[in-house]
């Protein structure tokens, strides 16, 4: 029996293959017709790509027709190259190189010779194309950007490369695919489905009508339009405020998790990546490795969050019951935890209770709360993991699950992290070794998107919806269910009020008192984050990042946002002002604090960014 198994399988396989071949080749005759020599030509019919609108129905992206000159190398007959090059307006060397590339790709499949002609060029060319066998013009649709902002949100489309073709046979050489932002995320919805036509040809290679009355043809399916949650006015205003600065702004509607604005600076005009100049422009953006315009700082930048993180330290302390609202903790210019240097603090009134602690951003206060939280448990390992569990419930330390194709996890360290870091159990470690986490400066890293998410959760008093950019898919009229599920944090609702009061007092008398906006109750928290850079292996400290998180109005919040300005120094200097302006723009539609607006619009940090590259000593935090 053991000898016969493989033998019988081989024989059965032989019979199966014989029957299959008999069926394909002898019994079923329709294949024969479909492949009649030189009789059938395949033509694709590309549907319109779906439009993109903002939340108020403003059109952001539509389409414009474009024409590609294509070639099937094996059908090319000897031609007057010089005349043809003149017609196409390209050099002979260029033409020869392109033909060679097309031949290497495939002699029998179409390749692009000259992409993206304008309508006028097409008109001039189309009446002469019949003279050149093997060449034809393929109509496609290109993106037509109605706005000059949101490039990081919208993404772009470009020709598929060979790798994509190999992975997904839907695409063929010269076809277009979404390569970033919502164009990539919602590619299949926006794209629709291309149609195919089989044309009967005679022996002179002329089309003589549809093959078999078109029974094998399929119609193209138009791509669906989509509506984004972005508020175009707010987005545009945000990008204007961020000119000559680096960093980002992200604003959410706390009640729904809808992304109102997603500004990454520096940015670029999306129209740069359309048409024949596309590749030149893209190269320029791609190789700017200092300003990194293609790097979405809001989604991909991992930064130490700085003081806004103290709100979470407070919430966790309250939930764990280690601090009373009324208990005052004194600060003698810093927190002494037994290290060589104490954890310094700035000048403010002392002692402070919870609300004042948030308003004045007192380092000692939060270091104390953090230490008690961790030390409540038998071992620091247990305490850290408990602390981490609370933070994870705010969507930190992992991908948030939003619908844009790039992102970073950030970092919320756990006990394993510190055990590795301090080589436990060879060396023991205790809470003070991690004390910087209490003020958002230790090992903790967040993306600006994660910062706004926890701010929204605070605004909602304990829950959030996953941030998302899709408002509606027209025709389907729904969005993925993941964005309709409420995510609850591990903090009980009653603990949020005192922290929110503290954030409100940041504006009333605290670290952002001088940037109040009359008539709007804003809650916010400033942050000033230390940071370092490595150039040629030399580690340098740069001017602090200016960070600000806020939401407004205090009751029934309509907008939550996080603002991040690289090397902007203290929190309210740049980020705080920008946050205030964004809030006023969104809630009122106009700006009353023109002085603040002028300061931001005219201010530039370019000088600051050039410092480390100048090859001379420089001072920071001026």
């Amino acid at each position, binding site marked *: 029996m053991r000898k016969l198994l*493989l033998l019988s399988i081989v024989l059965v396989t032989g019979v199966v293959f014989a029957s299959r071949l008999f069926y*394909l080749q*002898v019994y079923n005759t329709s*294949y*024969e017709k479909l492949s009649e020599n*030189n009789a059938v030509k395949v033509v694709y019919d590309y549907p319109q790509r779906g439009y993109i609108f903002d939340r108020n129905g403003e059109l952001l992206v539509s389409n414009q027709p474009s024409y590609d000159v294509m070639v099937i190398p094996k059908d090319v007959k000897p031609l007057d190259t010089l005349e043809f090059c003149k017609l196409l307006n390209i050099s002979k060397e260029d033409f020869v190189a392109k033909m060679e590339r097309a031949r290497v790709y*495939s002699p*029998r*499949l179409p390749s692009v010779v000259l992409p993206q002609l304008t309508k006028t060029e097409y008109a001039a060319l189309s009446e002469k194309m019949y003279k050149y066998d093997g060449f034809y013009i393929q109509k496609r649709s290109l993106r037509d950007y109605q706005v000059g902002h949101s490039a990081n949100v919208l993404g772009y489309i470009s020709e598929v490369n060979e790798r994509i073709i190999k992975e997904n046979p839907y695409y063929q050489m010269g076809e277009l695919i979404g390569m970033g932002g919502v164009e990539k995320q919602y590619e299949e919805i926006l794209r629709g489905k291309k149609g195919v036509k089989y044309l009967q040809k005679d022996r002179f290679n002329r089309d003589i009508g549809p093959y078999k009355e078109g029974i094998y043809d*399929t119609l193209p399916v138009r791509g669906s339009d989509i509506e984004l949650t972005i508020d175009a006015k707010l987005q545009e205003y945000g990008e204007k405020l961020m000119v000559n600065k680096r960093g980002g702004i992200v604003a959410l509607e706390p009640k729904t998790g809808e992304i109102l604005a997603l500004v990454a600076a520096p940015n670029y005009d999306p129209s740069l990546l359309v048409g024949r100049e596309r590749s030149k422009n893209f190269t320029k953006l791609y190789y700017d490795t200092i300003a990194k315009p293609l790097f979405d700082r809001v989604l991909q930048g991992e930064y130490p969050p700085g003081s806004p993180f103290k709100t979470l330290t407070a919430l966790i302390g309250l939930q764990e019951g280690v601090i009373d609202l009324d208990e005052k903790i004194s600060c003698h210019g810093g927190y002494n935890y037994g290290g060589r240097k104490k954890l310094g603090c700035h000048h403010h009134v002392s002692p402070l209770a919870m609300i004042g602690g948030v308003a004045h951003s007192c380092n000692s206060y939060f270091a104390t709360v953090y230490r008690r939280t961790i030390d409540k448990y038998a071992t620091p390992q247990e305490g850290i993991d408990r602390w981490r569990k609370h933070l994870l419930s705010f969507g930190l330390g992992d991908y948030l699950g939003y619908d844009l194709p790039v992102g970073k996890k950030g970092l919320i360290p756990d006990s394993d992290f510190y055990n590795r870091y301090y080589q436990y159990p060879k060396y023991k470690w205790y809470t003070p070794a991690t004390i910087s986490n209490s003020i958002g400066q230790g090992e903790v890293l967040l993306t600006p998107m994660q910062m706004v998410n926890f701010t929204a959760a605070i605004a909602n008093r304990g829950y959030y919806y996953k941030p998302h950019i899709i408002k509606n898919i027209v025709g389907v009229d729904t969005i993925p269910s993941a964005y309709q599920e409420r995510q609850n944090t591990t903090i009980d609702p009653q603990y949020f009020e005192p922290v929110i009061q503290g954030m409100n007092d940041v504006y009333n008398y605290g670290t952002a008192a001088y940037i109040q906006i009359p008539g709007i109750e804003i809650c916010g928290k400033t942050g000033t984050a230390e940071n370092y850079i490595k150039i040629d292996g030399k580690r340098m400290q740069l001017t602090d990042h200016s960070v600000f998180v806020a939401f407004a109005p205090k009751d029934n919040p309509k907008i939550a946002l996080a603002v991040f300005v690289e090397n902007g120094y203290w929190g309210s200097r740049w980020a705080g002002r920008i946050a205030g302006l964004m809030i006023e723009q969104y809630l009122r539609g106009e700006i009353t604090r023109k002085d603040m607006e002028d300061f931001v619009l005219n201010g530039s940090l370019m000088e600051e960014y050039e410092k480390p590259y100048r090859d001379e000593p420089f001072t920071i935090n001026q």
Partner: protein
Amino acid sequence: MGRKLQLDWITILLYLALVTAGWMNIYSASMEETQASFFDFGQIYFKQLIFIFTSMVLIVFILAVDAKFYERFSSIIYLISLASLLGLFVFGKNINGATSWYSFGAIGLQPSEFAKAATALALGKYVSDIQTNMRELKHQLQSFLIIFLPALFIIPQPDPGSALVYAAFVFPMYREGLNYIFIFLAFLSATLFVGTLLVGVQWMFLLTVTVTLLYFLYRRKRKKKRIRWFNYGFFVIICFAFTLSVNYVFNNIFEQRHRDRFNIVLGKEVDAKGIGYNTNQSEIAIGSGGWTGKGWLQGTQTKGNFVPEQHTDYIFSTVGEEWGFLGSMAVVLLFIFLIIRVLFLAERQKSTFGRVYGYSVASILFFHFFVNIGMVTGLLPTIGIPLPFISYGGSSLWGFTILLFIFVRLDASNYINR
């Protein structure tokens, strides 16, 4: 020694016939009408010709080496082969998204093609060891490890097709005493998987219950004694759980392209110009061949619509179009004769080593043959592995040649000692 080697000429002639048929079809698939000279080193068919000649040189070397060498050095050969697979992660060259190649100037070498022979040698050596008993779980697991390691290194290249080939080694292991339950389980899970996708969870559940019940009644009637119905119930529950997990795996773990491939083969989706493009065009090409085909070099237009892989994995569609049903059947029969011949020779080996190696050769050839022609004729999902001796490619041809001719050498010495 000194006597003439008693080579098995039937195997050698079958080999030569397949290689010749392969080259003729590669020539047809890669030739261009505008090509002026035959001797163009850049042309695919010319390169294949060079590969064939170098294979002949390889054969001479393989036959010149003493048969004992292969058994004695099998472990070292296996380790070198593993190292060459690992080395890819450092020195490999990325071609079309996969790092499966070493590049030496104009020549590329794909170590995964040679690893099959090395693994077959190692398995033969291990199983033939006097202390190995394939009926013991420990030894079964250790031989699985020998097979599993190269596959594990090949998957991340990524080349899941080539890694899948190692499943073929289950046949020699079964021959040497592996419990039939492994084969049964593999077959059962494949049936449940495909069945669930085809008819749905409810029907599969009904079917499982019915079949189990019938078997239960049959057993009870025959044995006339109490048998434990509990085991049968447990079996049904396991099957049901597996069936339920299928949808989850299919929808959440598979990627869209994998789903598409399955759906097309199962006939759940008809998509002539989109995802099923390769398979559809391949079926049209084969189907248009009719009884006798269009003749050598005459099948042109349908090939014009192929993706640029027709000379490698899809070479059989050229056979089908130009040589028709008779030509395709000839190739299928050549393969079946070759596999059966190797099986026959394997059974008459005196040493366990030779038998296991021969079985491995037959199984690997069969697996490639089965998956490749199944894919090209639209019976199986798209899994890109070459058709032995026929598909274009130096590493592939050399790899299979080495695999086969080591066995021819082993068999020849077997004959002498008789």
